[in-house]
């Protein structure tokens, strides 16, 4: 259950507020552990249209429809959801020059303990690069507002997908590695 998982609610709030500040009024999502707070925030927000998907690729269509309607949107997905959605991203969003803000939880990267997440984690960045999708990483809450705003700005001006990877240091509060001992002062 979400309550037992050390997913950062505070940093999820920072991400959510940044999405709102960048004009997002439609969020489509498929739940995974790291996204639970974000999805709950969208659900509790009467100014946000939350579309819970059966499969991530649908979210590309929802965002295309929202763009036609003149409404800004974002997709909340796990990196495996990004991999799932690729045909929609390529032959929907990219073919038709559609802005798409992909908010991707960066599973399977450094610090991942779940063996089943590791294979997808190995390829996320390389697949983004292969598709020519501009991407950046969110590590600290203080960099979130500006990066989300800039990613949205680029998506809208380039009419292209832009991806932000929500990394473990941002989303996961569990301390896994103690800091190295400080060197004695010389």
């Amino acid at each position, binding site marked *: 259950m979400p309550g037992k998982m050390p997913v950062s609610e505070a940093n999820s709030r920072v991400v959510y507020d940044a999405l709102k500040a960048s004009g997002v009024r*439609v969020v489509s999502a498929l739940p995974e552990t790291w996204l639970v707070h974000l999805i709950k925030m969208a659900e509790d927000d009467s100014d946000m249209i939350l579309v819970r*998907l059966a499969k991530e690729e649908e*979210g590309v*269509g929802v965002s295309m*429809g929202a763009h036609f309607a*003149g409404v800004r949107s974002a997709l909340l997905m796990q990196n495996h959801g990004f991999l799932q959605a690729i*045909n*929609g991203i390529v*032959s929907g969003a990219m*073919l038709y020059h559609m802005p798409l803000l992909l908010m991707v939880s960066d599973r399977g990267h450094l610090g991942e303990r779940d063996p089943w997440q590791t294979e997808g984690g190995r390829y996320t960045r390389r697949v983004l690069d292969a598709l020519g999708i501009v991407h950046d990483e969110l590590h600290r809450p203080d960099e979130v507002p500006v990066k989300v705003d800039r990613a949205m700005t680029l998506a809208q001006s380039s009419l292209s997908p832009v991806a932000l990877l929500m990394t473990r240091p941002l989303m996961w509060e569990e301390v896994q590695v103690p800091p190295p001992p400080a060197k004695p002062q010389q």
Partner: protein
Amino acid sequence: MKRLECLQAIYEDIQDCAVVTIMGATSAELHSLGHRPNFFYLTHAMGLASSIGLGLALCQPSRRVVVLDGDGSVLMNLGGLSTLARYGPRNLLEIIFDNESLLSVGGFPTATATGTDLAACARGAGIANTVSATNLDDFVSAVRAALGGEGLACIVAKVEAVGPAGYIVDTHMLEDRFMFARAMRQPPHNGGKMP
């Protein structure tokens, strides 16, 4: 019945709605009846026409949105039916032309040729107002009933596996895309407007 006859028969009813069609024969046939800036032809991304219709319908609840889908496309995104049902936009009509075939890519039979019932799928997904039509009168009545009322509706029309000779239209897909986006920034009028 033929899909082209169906489209001809409802053209005036849907002409002011936001219309999202799937690729291939359906696009080409609608285009041949008269292109309008409020028609969008999804020439690829099979399965996503209904998802585009959903996003549009949720964002513009005062505009009527009609999706012209097909059996091959719907079978690629059956989960999308459950998402449509979940949000049930009152301004969305999903029309599925079921010719039991992937006509646009050579006519291979789809699973509806071997027993899959898309009306049952839609109903089972939660779209209660789902009807099947096997003749033109029933089809036209069902479309007019849906467009005369409110609420998410789905019509599965059984049609012959025939289409136009070619799928090339005289406007470029990007031209259509930007024209459609511009049309969606204008307020809906006449039959395109929800009561």
